[in-house]
């Protein structure tokens, strides 16, 4: 299926050695944000995928190797862009703080 599962897909049964995983958590200060949307944009800025965050603010993508941008949308917040690199066999873990726009946004 093409559908998005809250928090992103499970790693259960997935051979992570063959995947380029980008995952993380969306927070507002110290609080996880469970009603945010995280979009994955490719190196040209084109939309590639989007997942709603889980109740604990988590999300996960299976990307390809290369440079990606995470764009986070949440109620009562400006969109936040964050650059992230992915590589096969590596799990890229990121924290997106929607109260603090990162320097590379």
């Amino acid at each position: 299926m093409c559908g998005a599962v809250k928090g992103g897909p499970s790693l259960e049964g997935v051979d992570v050695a063959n995947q380029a995983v980008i995952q993380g958590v969306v927070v507002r200060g110290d609080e996880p944000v469970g009603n945010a949307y995280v979009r994955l944009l490719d190196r040209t800025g084109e939309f590639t995928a989007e997942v709603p965050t889980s109740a604990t603010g988590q999300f996960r993508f299976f990307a390809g190797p290369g440079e990606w941008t995470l764009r986070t949308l949440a109620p009562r917040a400006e969109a936040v862009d964050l650059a992230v690199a992915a590589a096969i066999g590596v799990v890229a873990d990121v924290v997106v703080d929607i109260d603090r726009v990162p320097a590379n946004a």
Partner: protein
Amino acid sequence: MSRDTALVTADWVEEHLDDPKVVLIEVDEDVEAYDKGHIPGAIKLDWKKDLQDGVRHDFISKEKLEKLLSEKGVANDDTVVFYGGNNNWFAAYAYWYLTYYGHENLRLLDGGRKKWELDSRELSSEVPDRPATTYTAQEPNESVRAYRDEVVEAIGSKNLIDVRSPDEYAGRLLAPAHLPQEAAQIAGHIPTAGNVPWSKAANDDGTFKKDEELKALYADAGLDEGKDTIAYCRIGERSSHTWFVLNEILGYPNVKNYDGSWSEYGSLRGVPVAVGDERGEA
């Protein structure tokens, strides 16, 4: 069809929450989303359990649809408003599906569940109890559905639009990036198909772009308004989103959704396939 007859705003939905002839239906890929909170009064359809046959690789028959909608309390003269997560992908699929079976008054909530949530509008956990009806579906409207042989024949003669992401189109990814990159079929696209990712038709909040922007988007991709058009993706729900834009919002004639999409085409023996960012030859 036009934007005014196919789309409703979140404000319109709020104004019609108590209208007994307006049925809100949430269709989500994440089947738990509805259970955690939905628009007050909305009922739920599970795109897989409710709408797929389960044995044949196809959606449910006319008879099964009649039974389903009767049990859910949907009447033939109700205005059905679909909405859902993931920028209305599956809501658009359900809209297309009910168009196929001839429901008259269909609408899509512009922006879907995401826009509703980002606006911090009310969500309810209460499941409404609608009295059963006797729903009668129409005979299939084949003018909105494309099948594999027609798609092969369309190479080089009709507008083919691949609405997946550029990386899926080129064959660098086999599935959307929120899914593990595993699939049985080969990667690539149907030769001559232009790549207009569905997402280009939507704003970040999931609402559809303006008519002029949408027209320019497809014109820039070489869509010839004088020819018939077939849209496809991987399993037919993102291409329902684009079918909705072309057929329902812009009112282009003869637009079909190929719901077999790449999961079928990419598994066929002997058909032409193109890889890379270029369209490929007929």
